[in-house]
């Protein structure tokens, strides 16, 4: 009398690559003991808190749950503090500790695999049935994805770095105030502890707050894949709503942001009807470099939530560079931004309103970035 145990992906290596194992029936306790005897370390790897599904029926705190003959048993992670959730019971979970292992898992799972960082988008999508991956690859245990290093040339941000950690870096905030304020706008205090910069980018939302800020900072994405590493500018990373350049098995590892020149600073502004817990109706980021004469020497302007992806608007920068950042230059930049935007009408806002707003925001954000740049000692 046996039951069939599905081995979770994360434990497959330990279980000599087995996908399924027949185990004598009993209860969950006896089954875990049997597996631990056969595959020493199984119980430790499984950890203290897990749930099981017996023939698809989800059971929390299942230690003494009887497992009848002929049934199929899945081990599941406990998500959201052990509350019952509607997360697909078929999703296996793996938490590799290096990039290579993560890439291998993702490559094997193909379109059935999804990267889990903070999960603030993914878990919601799974709950509402927008996606039902077979494998979740949790990348938070990979050290490379948690780095936050400001060097003399470049700022390195691991893709799984949370907003909450980023905002605790005073030096990063001093050099990239716009980037940090964009990350701080995401969700709530609680969400910030989970939400990652890489996730914000990979989710592919046109309204993602950090993306325009990363674009004006001229950030580069470091992507690992089955054939090695490659670099993609942030401005080219997203290709449409929910779509990115990532191919099968590819993983965003890090964002590299060059240190800006002297007398340069950035800012991000978004418009939401609510003050927080909302999604941008329009967003604008600017990075301004001032010359010794106080005129604009360099500029980058990017906009969000007004096109299928966040956009860099070189025409807006052209309107600013060389100017004294007076009303005419700002209005010209705003006009360029409005011309570049291609928003949709939806429940969040009418298209015409978004177009109008992004112009207003771009003027305001340029003023903020300029005053920051002026206040910045060379």
């Amino acid at each position, binding site marked *: 009398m046996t039951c069939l145990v599905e081995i979770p992906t994360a434990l497959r290596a330990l279980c000599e690559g087995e996908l399924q194992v027949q185990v004598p029936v009993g209860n969950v306790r006896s089954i875990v003991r049997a597996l631990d005897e056969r595959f020493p370390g199984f119980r430790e790897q499984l950890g203290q808190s897990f749930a099981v599904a017996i023939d698809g*029926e*989800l059971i929390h705190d299942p230690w003494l749950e009887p497992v009848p003959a002929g049934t199929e048993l899945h081990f599941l992670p406990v998500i959201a503090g052990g509350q019952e959730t509607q997360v697909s019971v078929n999703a296996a979970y793996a938490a590799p500790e290096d990039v290579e292992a993560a890439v291998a898992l993702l490559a094997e799972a193909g379109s059935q695999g999804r990267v889990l960082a903070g999960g603030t988008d993914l878990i919601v999508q799974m709950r509402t049935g927008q996606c039902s991956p077979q494998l979740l690859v949790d990348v938070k245990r990979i050290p490379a994805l948690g780095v936050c290093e400001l060097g003399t040339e470049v700022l390195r941000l691991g893709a799984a770095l949370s907003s909450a950690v980023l905002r605790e870096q005073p030096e990063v905030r001093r050099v990239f105030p716009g980037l940090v304020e964009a990350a701080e706008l995401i969700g709530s205090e609680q969400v910030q502890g989970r939400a990652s910069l890489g996730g914000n980018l990979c989710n592919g939302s046109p309204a993602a707050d950090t993306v325009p800020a990363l674009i004006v900072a001229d950030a580069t994405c470091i992507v690992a894949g089955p054939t090695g590493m490659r670099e993609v500018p942030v401005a080219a990373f997203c290709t449409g709503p929910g779509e990115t350049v990532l191919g099968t098995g590819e993983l965003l590892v890090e964002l590299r942001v060059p240190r800006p020149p002297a007398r340069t600073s950035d800012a991000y502004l978004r418009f939401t009807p*609510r*003050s927080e817990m909302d999604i941008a109706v329009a967003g604008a980021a600017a990075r301004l470099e001032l010359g010794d004469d106080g005129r604009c020497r360099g500029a980058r302007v990017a906009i969000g939530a007004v096109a299928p992806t966040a956009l860099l608007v070189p025409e807006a920068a052209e309107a600013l560079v060389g100017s004294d950042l007076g009303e005419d230059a700002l209005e010209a930049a705003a006009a360029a931004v409005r011309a570049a935007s291609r928003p949709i009408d939806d429940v969040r*806002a009418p298209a*015409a309103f978004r177009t109008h707003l992004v112009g*207003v925001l771009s003027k305001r954000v340029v003023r903020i970035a300029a005053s920051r740049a002026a206040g910045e000692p060379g």
Partner: protein
Amino acid sequence: MGEEDGERKFRFVGTRPIRHDGVDKVTGRAQFGADYSLPGMLWGRVLRSPHAHARIVRIDTRAAMAIPGVKAAATSADLPEIEPGPGPANLAHLSRNVLAREKVLYHGHAVAAIAATSEAVAERALLAIEVEYEPLPVVLDLDDAMAPGAAILHEDLKTRGGKDAGPTNVAAITEYDRGDVDAGLAEADVTVRRSYRTQTVHQGYIEPHAALAQTGVDGQSVLWCCTQGAFTVRAYCAALLGLDVSQLKVIPTEIGGGFGGKTTVYQEPLAILLARKAGRPVKMVMNREEVFRATGPGAATHTEIELGARQDGTITAARVRMCFEAGGFPGSPAGAAAMTVLAPYEIPNYAIESLDVVCNKPRTAAYRGPGAPQAAFAIESALDELAEKLSIDPIDLRLRCAAKQGTRTPYGPTFKRIGLIETLEAARDSSHYKAPLGPDQGRGIAVGFWFNAGLNSSAEVHLNEDGTAIVATGNPDLSGSRASLAIMAAEELGIEVHRVRPVVADTDSVGFTDLSGGSRVTFATGQAVIDACRQVVRELRQRAAKIWDCDPDQVDFVDGRCVPAKGSGLSEEPLALAEVARQAGRTGGPINGQAQLTARGAGPSFATHLCDVEVDPETGRIEVLRYTAVQDAGRAIHPGYVEGQMQGGAAQGMGWALNEELVFDTQGVLQNPGFLDYRMPVASDLPMIETVVVEVPNPNHPYGVRGVGETPIVPPLAAVANAVRRAAGVCITRLPISPPRLLAALHDESGGDS
């Protein structure tokens, strides 16, 4: 009842003890609807209509039942047919809302239900249910519903109070009038004529509906659910399922918000039905999307108002016509709106008409002061415009026609002692009203009224052997009622508030009690608690007389002690309540009190709200800078929770004014079924709401209590709109005043463009 205790010195009434359920709630130990589970439990899920209006040709659940793990299926064929009939709670309509029978009437309307071993299996089974629909034209809103040749939702519907025999989508017309409106308008020096619209809103309670049912082979059932009224749920479920009331016990769980939305049933009868069919317990928990698509909402409205006044501010006439969207079944609060709209004012000539109109949206449910906020938005906006035209301070204008003791209400009775004038004066005299305003800023004021309810309540007071007490009532605690009931018991018994344990009892454990709604709990159930405590006190005096071997008349009860009455000649040492309780066994047995009543004489509560806003003319965004709520509470038993009600109502009303709106597409499909896009305000959107509690005691309550829960949501819609009008210089006739809408209004006004 009816005794006046106006001069009484209170020991506990008016203090602010921490609520008895507070620690459980802030530490997460409190058990809400979805927290209950039973061994062997199944999960129930509901199949919902993909059409907003369609005839159901056929439902076949056989394929779903064949899926392993599926244990029961239910359709309207499993419910007894209930013939449509009159009455406020039309059970035929309720039954058809719980499970659609002949037709589906809105997108998301429940069509069938499944119980299975897991939610995932149940979800899969829903997909296997075959339903054949014959789609019908969608009646989107009021204009559609009343257009000539409109599709008809209910072929048998006749207009109650109307002359037209139908077919029609107008379910009821309510009318009140007095004097000669045309003559009154002709007398006026200044008139205002406007048309106002509000959109469909949701009560927005955080806790989704949840129910767990268990049924024995003997037909006895137990239901755990989050509800505002366990007895109401028991009555509806018994009627819809054809059960005896005694076969069903309803255990109310803690409730995470209701605001009127949890005064009816949705999946509760289905959980019982599925549990009976499957022979196992069934748990049903709605997800947020279902809550938005199929519960609530508050009605969208269209109101036309004409007001006339003489130069001195005397209002000569008012004409009001209000149309309320009822959703798929009749029963919007159009009638209540007609009663409340002019209630705060003395106007010699008026004509009020309101229409209850069905359309293909979710069936509306009660929402805090049902109908009054929409009505107040219209009348208070028009009054404000009138004040401006007359160059009269808006509070002064209202004071000139404010209702007072003896004013006859439009709906009939004359007011007894009420506190409207006191709230207006307190608002006028507040520091807020005198504070200066900056550029792009404006200040709005508005008045609100709600009747408040009495209804039926029971209470049991058990004196424990150590002198502590249990107070058991049948009202789920929405907002601190445990604390207020315990305070009243402490006051009567003369023991500390935390020596009283207030209990929300199930339907088997306390006498019938109407639901927690109508701002009635502290007023009505409070009276039952006071009565029951007074029985206990009578008994305590008798027991003391036995101990002292004297006549009960020789014993007084003062501050929790039995003492010799003045002039009794006794010289005994006082006997503390705890001492008498300890000796109960040798003096006649346990000491309990029990009372039941139909509370009458609920005192109406009036409020005046002040709101300051700043408008961003480039984006249309509105920032609420300062807000003050002034309200007559009669007597604030626990002032902290009275203030909490005032703040909560003001916050909800501001959300209604600023951004809240259920958006339906042309096929009647809700576009924003979640809190992300149904934009209720978050804490950082609002300033700290200042409160001024006015106490004009209600003569019909021993302590002077008036209900306070609903009135606070009545004024904010107009208070915000009036503030925006004065800040931006554009007339606000449509809610919500969302940024795109305000920006468009600003551009229309200036003739400019973006």
